[in-house]
C-alpha cells in the first residue's frame, strides 16, 4: 500500500501487511533515529502539532521524529485555545491549521476527533490519541518493539496485565497482536478485565485468549509481559486499589519464575507497577520501547509525506 497522503487514524484501518510495511520502514529509521546517520528526506516540510491536551512525551517524540528527517515543526496547540474560548468547532480549527503545515498531529479529548479532523483536512492527519479512543502510534511502537526484540510476533506468548478494561490502547494492541498470530493471556481482576466485545473481536481472528486474575500462574511461559497502569480513580475504595496494585507489581522475585528471555514492556510513565530493580535486568525493555516511538513516528511521517529514504 502506498501511504502517501493517508491519514493514520486507527490501527484497525490497516491490514497486517500494511502494518508490517511501516514496521519495516521503522527498522530502516533506527540509525537515523539515534543520530548515527543523518538524512533529510522531509526537508522543507512542516509538521503541525495540535494538542488539545497536554501530552509532553507524544508531542516531543513527534517533534524529534520530524526534526530527524529534516522537517520543521510548528506547535499550533495555541489554536486550541480559540476553539475552546470562542467556541470554534474542531472542523474549523483543522481547516485553518491545515493551511499552516503539511501534516497535522492531533491529540484531542473526544473520541473520534481524529476521524473528524481527517475529513476536514486536505493534508494527512496522524492521531496522537483521541480521548479514550485510539492511539495508533503507541500500538505500532509496541508491535515494533516486540518484533524487534523477538524477531517475529507469530506464536509469542504475550501476557497483558493491569487495567485491561478502560485503556483503548490496550484493546487495539490486543486486537493487532491477535492479527499477528500471538497467543494472548489477559491478567486482571474481574472488574478490570478485557471487555467482551474486544475478546469476541479477537476470537474472530482465530485467537482464544486465556483470562486469569493471577499473574504468578502464567508468568513462567510468557515471552512478553506487557504491564499497564492501574489507575487509582477506577477504585471507589482505596484499600481495594492497594490490594490490586500490590497483586500485579512486577519485581525481581516475581521474575524468577519467568523465562530468561522474557521481555517486560510498559507504555510509561509507570507509577509502581514495575519495581526499579527490574530496570537493571535484561528483561526490562520499556526504555527501548519508548525510544522506538521515534523510528516508528519517523516511518509514519516519511510514508505519509512521501519522503524517500
Amino acid at each position, binding site marked *: 500500500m502506498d501511504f502517501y497522503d493517508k491519514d493514520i487514524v*486507527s490501527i*484497525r484501518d490497516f491490514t497486517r501487511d500494511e502494518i508490517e510495511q511501516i514496521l519495516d520502514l521503522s527498522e530502516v529509521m533506527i540509525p537515523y533515529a539515534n543520530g548515527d546517520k543523518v538524512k533529510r528526506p522531509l526537508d522543507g516540510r512542516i509538521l503541525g502539532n495540535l494538542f488539545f491536551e497536554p501530552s509532553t512525551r507524544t508531542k516531543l517524540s513527534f517533534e524529534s521524529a520530524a526534526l530527524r528527517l529534516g522537517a520543521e515543526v510548528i506547535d499550533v496547540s495555541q489554536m486550541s485555545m480559540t476553539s475552546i474560548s470562542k467556541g470554534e*468547532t*474542531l*472542523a474549523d480549527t483543522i481547516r485553518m491549521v491545515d493551511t499552516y503545515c503539511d501534516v497535522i498531529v492531533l491529540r*484531542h*479529548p*473526544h*473520541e*473520534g*476527533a481524529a*476521524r*473528524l479532523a481527517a*475529513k476536514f483536512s486536505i493534508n494527512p492527519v496522524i492521531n496522537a490519541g*483521541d*480521548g*479514550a*479512543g*485510539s492511539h495508533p502510534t503507541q500500538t505500532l511502537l509496541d508491535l515494533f518493539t516486540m518484533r524487534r526484540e523477538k524477531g517475529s510476533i507469530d506464536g509469542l506468548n504475550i501476557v497483558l496485565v493491569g487495567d485491561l478494561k478502560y485503556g483503548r490502547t490496550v484493546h487495539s494492541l490486543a486486537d493487532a497482536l491477535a492479527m499477528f498470530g500471538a497467543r494472548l493471556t489477559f491478567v486482571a481482576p474481574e472488574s478490570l478485565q478485557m471487555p467482551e*466485545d474486544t475478546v469476541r473481536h479477537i476470537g474472530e481472528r482465530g485467537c482464544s485468549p486465556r483470562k486469569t486474575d493471577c499473574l504468578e500462574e502464567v508468568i513462567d511461559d510468557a515471552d512478553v509481559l506487557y504491564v499497564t497502569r492501574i489507575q487509582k480513580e477506577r477504585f471507589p475504595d482505596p484499600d481495594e486499589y492497594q490490594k490490586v496494585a500490590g497483586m500485579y507489581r512486577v519485581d525481581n522475585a516475581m521474575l524468577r519464575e519467568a523465562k530468561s528471555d522474557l521481555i517486560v514492556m510498559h507504555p510509561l510513565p509507570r507509577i509502581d507497577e514495575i519495581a526499579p530493580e527490574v530496570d537493571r535486568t535484561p528483561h526490562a525493555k520499556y526504555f527501548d520501547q519508548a525510544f522506538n516511538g521515534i523510528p516508528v513516528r519517523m516511518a509514519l511521517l516519511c510514508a505519509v509525506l512521501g519522503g524517500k529514504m
Partner: protein
Amino acid sequence: MKEFKIAPIRNGTVIDHIAAGQALNVLKILGVNESNIGSTISVAIRVQSKKEMGWKDVIKVEDRELDPATVDKIALIAPDATIVIIRDYYIAEKFNVALADHITGLARCSNPDCITNKGEPVEPEFDVVNRRPPTLKCSYCDRILTRISDNLL
C-alpha cells in the same frame, strides 16, 4: 381465514411484520405523541404472524404515507417490517424496509464523549455490524450504539 383485528382503512399505511415489542418505538419514529395525532392510528402488539412462525406487531396509520427517512429509521429497529400503502382500500404499494450497510444521520451516537455529540458540523455515521437485531457502530468513535430507539434523531 383472513382475520382483521383492526378495521380496514381507506387510505393510509400499514406497517406490518414489526419485530414483536417494537411497535411503541415505531410510533416514536412516526412522531406520535399526545399533541401530534392527526389521524387514526391502530396498533396491534404481539399478533400471530402467518409468514414467520412467531409474533409481530402491526401499525396502521390512516391518511398518511411515510417519507423515505422515516422508513429508513423504522429499518433500524424493525428490519423485517413491510410497508403497505393503502389507497381506496386496496394495496397500492408494498415494500420491505431496507437496512443499509452504512447509516448517515437518523441516529445520534450514544457515547457522550463522541466528537459527533460536540456540536461539530457533521452528521453521525454508523456501520451496520449486525442485521438481526440491527447493531450500529459509530464511524467516528467506534463504539456500538446502545439502545438505538433512544437515540433516533
